[in-house]
C-alpha cells in the first residue's frame, strides 16, 4: 500500500497539472498519472498487481513503437500523396504521444519503459503503391484496437483502464479513416472484438 505522503504528492501533482495550464497534457495523460494513486489498492498483492500493470503497459508501448516505425516507413516510402502523408504524420504523432504518456506512467509505477527496437520486420517488398501502405497501416491500427480491448479488463485500476480506452478510441478512429481512404466501409460492424 502507498503511504499518505506518496498519495498526497501524487494528488498535488495532479492538481498542478490540471490547474496551471502551463503544461499541456491530454486528459489521458492526467488520468494515467492520476491512476497511479489507486494502482496500489488492488485485490492482488501490491507488487503483483503493479508488476502486471507495468507488463501490460510495456506491451502497449512496444506496439506503439512499432506503429511509429511503421508510419515512418510509410512516410518515407514516397508512395503517399501529400494529403495522405499529412494524415499519416499526424497519426504517427498520436502514437508518439501515447508512448510518452504510457512510458511516464510505467516510470511513475517504478518500472522501466521498453525502448523502440533497432529495426522492425515490415513487409517492405509488398508495399508498392499507396493503398498497400494504407492497408498495412490499417492492419496495425485494427490490431492495436484489439490489443487495447483485450488489455483493458486486466487493469485493476479503473483510471488506467479509462486511459487505455481513450487510446483505443484514438486508434479506432485511425483505423476507420484509413479504411475510408481505402474505399472500404469505415465502420464495418456495430461490435468490435
Amino acid at each position: 500500500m502507498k503511504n499518505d505522503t506518496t498519495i498526497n504528492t501524487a494528488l498535488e501533482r495532479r492538481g498542478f497539472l490540471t490547474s496551471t495550464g502551463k503544461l499541456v497534457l491530454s486528459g489521458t495523460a492526467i488520468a494515467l498519472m492520476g491512476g497511479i494513486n489507486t494502482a496500489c489498492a488492488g485485490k492482488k498483492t501490491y507488487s503483483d498487481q503493479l508488476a502486471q500493470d507495468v507488463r501490460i503497459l510495456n506491451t502497449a508501448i512496444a506496439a506503439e513503437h512499432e506503429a511509429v516505425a511503421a508510419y515512418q516507413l510509410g512516410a518515407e516510402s514516397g508512395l503517399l500523396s501529400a494529403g495522405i502523408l499529412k494524415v499519416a504524420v499526424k497519426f504517427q504523432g498520436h502514437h508518439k504521444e501515447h508512448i510518452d504518456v504510457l512510458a511516464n506512467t510505467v516510470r511513475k509505477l517504478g518500472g522501466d519503459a521498453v525502448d523502440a527496437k533497432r529495426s522492425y520486420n515490415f513487409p517492405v517488398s509488398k508495399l508498392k503503391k499507396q493503398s498497400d501502405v494504407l492497408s498495412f497501416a490499417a492492419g496495425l491500427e485494427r490490431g492495436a484496437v484489439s490489443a487495447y480491448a483485450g488489455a483493458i479488463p486486466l487493469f485493476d485500476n479503473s483510471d488506467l483502464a479509462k486511459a487505455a480506452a481513450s487510446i483505443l478510441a484514438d486508434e479506432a478512429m485511425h483505423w476507420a479513416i484509413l479504411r475510408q481512404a481505402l474505399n472500404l466501409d469505415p465502420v464495418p460492424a456495430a461490435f468490435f472484438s
Partner: protein
Amino acid sequence: MKIICQFIALVTLLSGSQSNVFSGGETKKYNSGNNVNIAAGKDIYVQCIGCHSLTYHRTGPKHCGLIGRKVGGVSGFEFTPEMKNSTIIWSRETLNQFLKDPLEMIPGTSMGFSGIDSEFKRKQLIDYIATLTTENILCR
C-alpha cells in the same frame, strides 16, 4: 445490467454461429473427424495481429509452428522469465487454457490480453493456429 449481459452473450453466440454456419472459406476435415472452419478461425485471429505475426516476431512471438513448441521456446524472441522457464508444451489443450485466461495460466506472461470467453471461438481460433505448420504456405 443482467439484461445487457444476456444481450451481449446472445450477440456473441449468434456471431459465432453465423461465422461457423454461413461463412464460406476453407473447411478441412481432420483425423479427429471434426469439421473445422479455418476461415472462421482466421477471422478471430485478427484479434492477435496487434502484436503477433505468422512468420516473424513482433511485440509477441511468431505463430507459425506454435503447436508442439515449448512455451517460451522459440528462438529470437525475448520472453519473460516465467514463459522461458515454463515446461508447458503448446497443444490444443494448453493453448485452449491459455487463450481462456493467459494471466491465470502463466501470471508472468507479457501478453496483456484478458482472454477469449467463448469456448467455441477459442476452438475456431485454435483450429486455425493448428494449420500454421511448416507445410502451410503462409509459413514458408
